[in-house]
């Protein structure tokens, strides 16, 4: 009982009081410093809880697969997607990283594989014409670089180009050594998580979000049926606001824009502030109840 109820309530009270005092403390005070640390602890705890969530997700879906559930294929896809994304995210990083160029000792490296582009004054990406290349070791011409046969290490290649009449240089590092598994593996995982996010998750998110357009139409159709006096007021108000927000409305009568703006900024705002104030007071009261230990249902039971 002590561990399940009393101790969490004591921790909740102490953290709550500390957070309140921290909110009123100025920057640089020791209370404020620990208050900011407390917020970071929250993130750390959430990260551990994430493991619990992932464990649960895998367990629930794995059980469905083993029990030959009708949705076992989707469960398998979910687990596979989770593992693949985690694999590339953990090993290759979640953000796009610097490209690495590798050359083999004694063999030519095609400089065309790193053409250089820049943004012009119109912010358009344009290729940069390279006048010449220089290298601190090995031989280089306009198209290829050949490191010495017995060289291993990093070589700085310098691409020389002209910009606004001035010769400028770009340094590019090329790693010279025998190709090995490590580099191949490193390149295999590199950026794939960003790729998954950009080309799998983002389009899926956009798809779900775009459903809103259809749902708004169907919900509006049901909500705007003039079944009662209140529903008729809603319909008329919504019609005026819509006309005021679209070009055709102002083409019919320019006054729609003004009326629409007045409805939103005055009538709607008054209601909005009343609801917000009420919710804020409710949230404050709920927070006080939790801190003072009057609300314990979130711990389970009464």
């Amino acid at each position, binding site marked *: 009982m002590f561990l399940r109820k009393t101790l969490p309530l004591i921790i909740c009270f102490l953290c709550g009081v500390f957070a309140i005092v921290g*909110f009123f403390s*100025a920057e640089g005070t020791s209370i404020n410093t620990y208050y900011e640390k407390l917020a970071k602890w929250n993130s750390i705890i959430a990260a551990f809880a994430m493991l619990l969530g992932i464990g649960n997700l895998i367990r629930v879906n794995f059980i469905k697969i083993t029990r030959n559930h009708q949705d076992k294929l989707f469960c398998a896809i979910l687990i596979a997607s989770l593992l693949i994304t985690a694999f590339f995210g953990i090993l290759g990083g979640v953000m796009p990283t610097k490209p*690495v160029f*590798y050359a083999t000792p004694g063999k030519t490296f095609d400089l065309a594989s790193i053409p250089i582009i820049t943004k012009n004054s119109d912010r358009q990406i344009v290729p940069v014409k390279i006048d010449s290349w220089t290298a601190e070791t090995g031989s280089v011409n306009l198209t290829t670089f050949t490191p010495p046969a017995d060289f291993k290490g990093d070589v700085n290649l310098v691409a020389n180009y002209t910009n606004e009449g001035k010769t400028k*240089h770009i340094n590019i590092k090329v790693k010279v050594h025998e190709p090995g598994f490590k580099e191949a593996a490193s390149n295999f995982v590199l950026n794939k998580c960003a790729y998954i996010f950009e080309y799998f*998750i983002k389009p899926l998110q956009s798809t779900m979000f775009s459903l809103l357009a259809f749902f708004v139409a169907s919900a509006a159709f049901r909500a705007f049926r003039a079944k009662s006096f209140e529903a008729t007021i809603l319909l008329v108000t919504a019609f005026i606001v819509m006309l005021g927000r679209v070009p055709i409305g102002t083409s019919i009568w320019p006054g729609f824009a003004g009326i629409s703006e007045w409805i939103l900024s005055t009538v709607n705002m008054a209601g909005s502030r009343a609801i917000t104030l009420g919710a804020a007071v409710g*949230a404050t009261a*709920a927070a006080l109840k939790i801190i003072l230990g009057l609300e314990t249902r979130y*711990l*389970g039971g009464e």
Partner: protein
Amino acid sequence: MLFQIKLKSFSLRFLVFFLTIVFCLPAFFPLYAQTAEVIAPAQTVEVSVALQTAETAVQEAPAAVQTAEIAVKEAPSAAQTSEAKIEISGQIKAEAPAAVPEAPAAPAQKPMKVSASKRSVYITPGQTFDLSAITLSAKSAEGKDEPVKIESWSADTGSVNLNVYTPPSASFAGTVTLLANYNDAGETKSFEIEMKVRTVYISERIIVLVIALILGLIIVISINSTLSGKSYFIRKIGGLNAIDEAIGRSTEMGKPVLYLTGLSDVSSIATIASISILSYVARKTAEYETSLLVPCCRSLVMNTAREVVKESYLEAGKPDAYNAENIKYITDDQFGFVSGVDGIMLREKPAANFYLGHFMAESLIYAETGNSIGAIQIAGTSEFSQIPFFVAACDYCLIGEELFAASAYLSRKPKDVGTLRGQDIAKLVIMAIVIIGVVLETVAAVNPGLSSSLGMYKSLFQTK
């Protein structure tokens, strides 16, 4: 007929499998297209190089580094359909104009990279600051931190000597820039340190503390009042009255109840309020032996919800009916969670849906999907922008504070009712403050001479 259904199911599975293969493989194929000599990412890459500015660089050395933006693009390859922005560090050297003869390059001497023990320091008004608390150090060639002697101190305001900084006045509050001057290869350089002179508390927030204390006091008095046996009227809230009806309907139809606590974590008050209502809903579903589904967007919420539902089932005397698998984590991603919940709705076809907590743009997607399966829907959120969607698409909607009042409404326990009464009194106080403000604003508009009174009144409630 059975064969047709099996064929359809097989076709669908094959299609999903095929699409997975088609979409996944191109991501990895380019790697195999690389030559042995050059292993480079197969995407089009954009490279930004940000170093020093050209002007500074030219001043410091003939071949200095300047700011530029470059990009490195890969050669076309068969599988190149993607783009990824990539940043690498590189150098762009600037040459002096040909007409200006370059001076012979002096032996390159790197400037010391100095760091301070403190970059920002804080004092209260009227206090002096002991400058010995700040030390400078620089990395030696061996990589060790070596102390840098501070030759002198200067400040943009106040007085400073080698040991102590004194603000310009005892009441001074603000930010002061202190410069620690040191010698680097015969040249005097400065290291900037920010000093903030401020009180230990944020004075602009005192009004918040006062209001919170008043609110707390009102609530405590109200709770004491209800505990002493006084009863108070609570107006009917349609959405909360309908909870029993909705669960009863699910039981009659033999379908589950779906409960969502929203997007936020347990740190959100709306989520905690939702968990309190979940406790009541779980007890009812346990009594009626109806299945309760609680998909969660946050893993901490999942654990909390499990504990709460388990306790409710125990209280209802039906511990065996509790199924932990029904309270599951789906994903933290907003629209990933929406698609997961929509899938549950379409597969399980719950007869009652509860959306109580913090919701964002996904609110209407839930409500419309729930409506399409014919479920009775009870929603509630304190997020103002989502209330219209719930009002339009759900059968009942708890608006704003009703969500926080729900636990008191459902339990009718003295401490909860007392809190509710405290909230109402606090709202009355706020209403009075707003009405006084409106009157003052109107009077000041008619009689500008009173605008100073209005300004004083407004300043009371200004926070930072």
